[in-house]
C-alpha cells in the first residue's frame, strides 16, 4: 500500500466517502427532487418555453449528471495527489 500510515489510509477513505455523499445529494436533488417530487411546484416557474420541473426531468438533470461525473473525477484526482496515491 502506498499510504504513509494507517491513519492516512483511514482519512483518505473518509474524505472519499464524504465527497461521494455530497455529490450523490446533488444527483438526488436534481433528478428525484426537481424532476419528480417537486415537479409540480417547479412547473409554476418557466425558463423560455420550458416549465422548470419538466426541463429538469427531460434536460437539466442530464446536464447536471455530466458535470457531476467530471467534478468527481477532478476532485478524486486532487485527493489522490494529497495522499500521494495518484497513479502517474
Amino acid at each position, binding site marked *: 500500500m502506498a499510504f504513509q500510515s494507517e491513519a492516512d489510509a483511514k482519512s483518505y477513505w473518509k474524505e472519499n466517502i464524504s465527497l461521494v455523499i455530497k455529490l450523490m445529494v446533488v444527483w438526488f436533488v436534481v433528478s428525484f427532487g426537481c424532476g419528480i417530487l417537486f415537479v409540480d411546484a417547479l412547473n409554476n416557474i418557466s425558463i*423560455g418555453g420550458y416549465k422548470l420541473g419538466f426541463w429538469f426531468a*427531460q434536460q437539466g438533470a442530464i446536464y447536471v449528471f*455530466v458535470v457531476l461525473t467530471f467534478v468527481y473525477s477532478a476532485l478524486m484526482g486532487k485527493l489522490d495527489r494529497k495522499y500521494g496515491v495518484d497513479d502517474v
Partner: protein
Amino acid sequence: MDLKTLTYIVVGASFALYFGIAIWARAGSTKEFYVAGGGVHPVANGMATAADWMSAASFISMAGLISFLGYGGSVFLMGWTGGFVILAMLLAPYLRKYGKFTVPEFIGDRFYSRGARIVAVICLIICSVTYVIGQMKGVGVAFSRFLEVSYEVGLLIGMVIVFFYAVLGGMKGITYTQIAQYCILILAYTIPAMFISLNLTGNILPQLGLGSTLVGTDVFLLDRLDQVVTELGFSEYTTTSRGSTLNMFVYTLSLMIGTAGLPHVIIRFFTVPKVKDARSSAGWALVFISILYTTAPAVAGMARLNLINTIQPEQGENLVYEDRPQWFKNWEKTGLLGFEDKNNDGAIQYSADPAVNEMVKIDQDIMVLANPEIAELPNWVIALVAAGGLAAALSTAAGLLLAISSAISHDLLKGVIAPDISEKQELMASRIAMAVAIAGAGYLGYNPPDFAAGTVALAFGLAASSIFPALMMGIFSKTITKEGAIAGMIAGITVTLLYVFQHLGIMFVAGTEFLGSMPKNWFLGIEPNAFGAVGALVNFIVAILVSRVTAAPPAEVQEMVEQIRVPTGVSDAHAH
C-alpha cells in the same frame, strides 16, 4: 440516385468499415479478448461505452415512447443517464482497480466462494440473454425495414457481421467497431433532429428549440403542443406523469441501478489503463450518451407536433386522406401507420376517443424513422438513419455477447470446470463460446419466446436486484459474508421475478399470471417493470441480516477490500 441504391451504398460502406477494423484489431491473448489489452484511452472507451449502451431501442423507440408519454417518459431519460453517475462514483473505479476480467470473478473473489461466482454467472447470463434477444430482434427488424430483405435474412446478415468482428477481435475488435458505430449513430440521430428543430423554431439546437417559440409566432412550442393534444382529448404533454409519484420515483431508481449493474456496461471499464481513467471515462461516456438523450425529448415533442399538424392543419379541419403526404404513404405500406375511415368522410380524424379516432395505428418507432422524410431532408440522410439504426443494434448485441461468452469461458470453464487450461486454450474456448452465443442469440431472435416483449425491462430488474447490490456491498463493506451475499442475490432476484411473473404471467405466458396486470393489484401502485429497486432493497436487507449471524470474512478478503480502495498499483494487481 434512388433511395434504395443510396441506402445500400451507405450501409455497405459502414459494414466495410467494421470488417476493416475487425481485421486490424485481432486479439492475440485472453487479455486482449476480454479487456482489449487494458490500454484503451478513456475518451475512446467513453465513446465505445456509449455505443455499447445505446441500443436499437434507444435509437429507434425511445423518442417515440416519450412522444406518447410526455412528461411520464422522463423516467427513461433520467434513469438511463443517472445510472452512469452511480457507476462512475460507486463501482467503476474500484472494479478497475481490482483488475481482472469479469464481474462474476470479482463477486467470487470478494465473497471467497465458488458458489457466489456461479450464482453471479447465472444472474449475468439470465440478464444478458434476455437483453440480447431484444437486440437480435432489433437487428432483424432494422435490416428488413431498411434494406427491404426478409426478417430472417436480416437477422442472418447481422449475425455474420457480429460473428466476424466479435469472434476475431473479442473486446478489442468490439471496442474499435463500437467507436465507429457511435460516430455513425450519433450523426444519424442528430442531423434530422437539427433540421426539424430549425424548421419548426428557427433554432438549430434541438435542446434549445424545444424551449423556443414556433417560427413566425410568439407561441412557445411546448405550449402549442399542450394545447393541440388536449384539444384532441389527450392529457397534457408536459405534466402527465406515469402512474403515481411513487411509481415514477421507483421506476427511475430501478433503471438507474439496473444500468449500473449491467455486466456488459461494467466490463467496458476494465479496458482502460488506470483507476483515474475509469473515473473520467464514465464522464466521457455520459457526455456521448447525453448528446442523444437530450436530443430525444426534442425529437419526441417536435415529431408529435408535426404529426398532429399534418393530420389537422387547423383546429377542426382534417387532412383529406387522398391528399396525404408521400411519407405517410410510405410508412402506411410498412404497417407502422394505419388509417380506417370510420365515418366515411374521406378525411382523417385523430382523437383520444377510440370510437372517433381513425388513426388506428401509429407505431412509436415512426417518430424517429419518418423524421427525415417529414422534414423533407435529402435521401442521403434517410440512408444515414438506416446505417445509424443498424449500428445501434449491432454495437449493443456485440457487447452483450462478449459479456456472455466471457462468463462462460472465463468464469465457468477456466474458473470452475477446468482451471488448468493454458491461455491459448482459454482464448480458443472464448472464441468458441462467442460463436455459440451468437448462434444461440440468433436462434432466439428467429424464434422469439413469448416473453420477448418484456425482456429488456426484465433485464434491468434482474441487474438491479442481483448484481448491483452484490457489487456495492463487496466494495463498501468488509463485513458482508459469502452466505449473506449469496442469500441476498437469490432473495433479490426471486422477489423481482415473482412480482413480474405474478402480474405479467410466468415467463410472460398469458393466462398464467395469478394476480393480473391491473394497477389496483400492484404493490403500492408500483408497476412490474419498476420493481427492481424493491428487489435490490430486499437483497441488501437479507445480505446484511445473514452476514450478522455467519462467520466474518477471512482476513485476506478484508485486505483485498482495503486494496481495491487505493487507486495505485493497478499494474501489479493485473498479473494473472
